[in-house]
């Protein structure tokens, strides 16, 4: 299991033990944390699984591909350099202890 910290839209910090075989979107959703909508079920078609990842995670992850970049422009909260679609990030690729912040809204 990978230990992550998720900062909820309400600003609470939640510890999550994430299964490395899932996506970050599934890990947050399955931990029962509100703030991910994931309308398209992880197919990079809805931009409602937007998250901000910390610098350690940014350094460890492959950068977003062209499609993910394009989708992020249409997220409800404006994307930054830290933005990812959580459905396109595998927990296995995240560093232990990574901090993931949820935007105020996904819709």
């Amino acid at each position: 299991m990978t230990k992550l910290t998720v900062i909820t839209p309400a600003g609470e910090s939640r510890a999550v033990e994430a299964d490395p075989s899932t996506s970050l979107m599934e890990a947050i959703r399955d931990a029962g944390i509100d703030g991910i909508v994931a309308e398209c079920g992880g197919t990079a078609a809805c931009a409602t699984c937007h998250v901000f990842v910390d610098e350690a995670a940014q350094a460890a992850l492959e950068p977003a591909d062209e499609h993910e970049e394009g989708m992020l422009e249409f997220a409800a909260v404006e994307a930054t350099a830290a933005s990812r679609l959580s459905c396109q990030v595998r927990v296995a690729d995240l560093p232990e202890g990574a901090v993931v912040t949820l935007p105020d809204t996904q819709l």
Partner: protein
Amino acid sequence: MPRPLPVIDDVSLAEMYDDPYPIYARLRQEAPVAWLAPANIALITRFDDMIAIERDDETFPANDPRSLQIRSMGHSLMRRDGAEHASERAVLVKSFSPPMVKSHWSPLFREIADELVGDIAPRGQGDLFTDFAAPMAARALAQIIGIPETDWRDLLWWSQALIDATGNYADLPEPWERCARASEGIDAAIDHHAALWAKAPNPSALSAMVAAGWPIERIRADIKVIIGGGLNEPRDSIGTVLLGLLSDAAQLEAVKADPALGRKAFEEAVRWVAPIGMYPRRVARETVLSDTVLPAGTAIGLSAASACRDESHFGESAGRFDMNRPKAQHLAFGSGPHFCLGTWMARSMVGDIAVPALLDALPELRLDPQNPPRMGGWVFRGPLSLPAIWSPK
């Protein structure tokens, strides 16, 4: 103990066509998972059950060998599951992606909308459904699919023929015959245009399929499913947004004053009256949903229309068109891997362009008080007519 599937045999499909919403309200309360005898399916009417189903395509696959859609259109991606579905869909994603919509398709939608509005403005009256919504959706679809030389009126009847065959549960001969004629026309349009795009690719869906080297059977089936699913929905949603706004002066004035609100009005309109009211899945292994047993093999219908009015998500005002309600996920585009491919296309075409263009160009546009609008349908639902008057210009 979970209960066996309750049977609902005291409603008729004619009643459902007329106005399914009171029936859905009753089912959500009393029998959210129920065998709807006149349609021969188990109908799922609660929001949370629909989400659970779309998250589990092993228990609830989209593929069903009995599917009338497969019989009428061929086996398209809409009836495939898992990795096979994902790789097929991936070929089409770029054509329908929001950046492509913004850079390539929106300018085209704007041209079509301006031309149509220019045509009807001097008339002072007309049916916004047949004179505006239908040609808007059909002309845009011919471009998106990649068969631009096709007459939009052909596209309109082809789409209806495919849909009627897909819903031909009574197995009448006439819908099958009409579907066969439509298929001939569609296959000819595909052959003609596929040869063009093989030499000169473009952002259309057909061009993407040709570039991916798909076998012709797959191209035909997927183009047909896009024709069947890509015409009614934008057309009906244009009509529904207009109906919602023209029935509520405050919301109408708000969108006129700020056309950017068109998108909000669109999103609320499809929640209010989901254009695809119901779509099928199959139960692959016995399971329990809302405390009701669903035996393996059961054909189920997911009522997006009902889920979009589920009180537990949208409160007691769920039946009202109110674009100012708190933002919340709705299920008009479905959810999960089959989430509507045309979502971003429709948001732009209907919400950003067609509706604001019409409101801007027709001063004092209002519903015709002599001729009330008509709505119909439960599998697909939308306006049947939308008579309106305005000051000619």
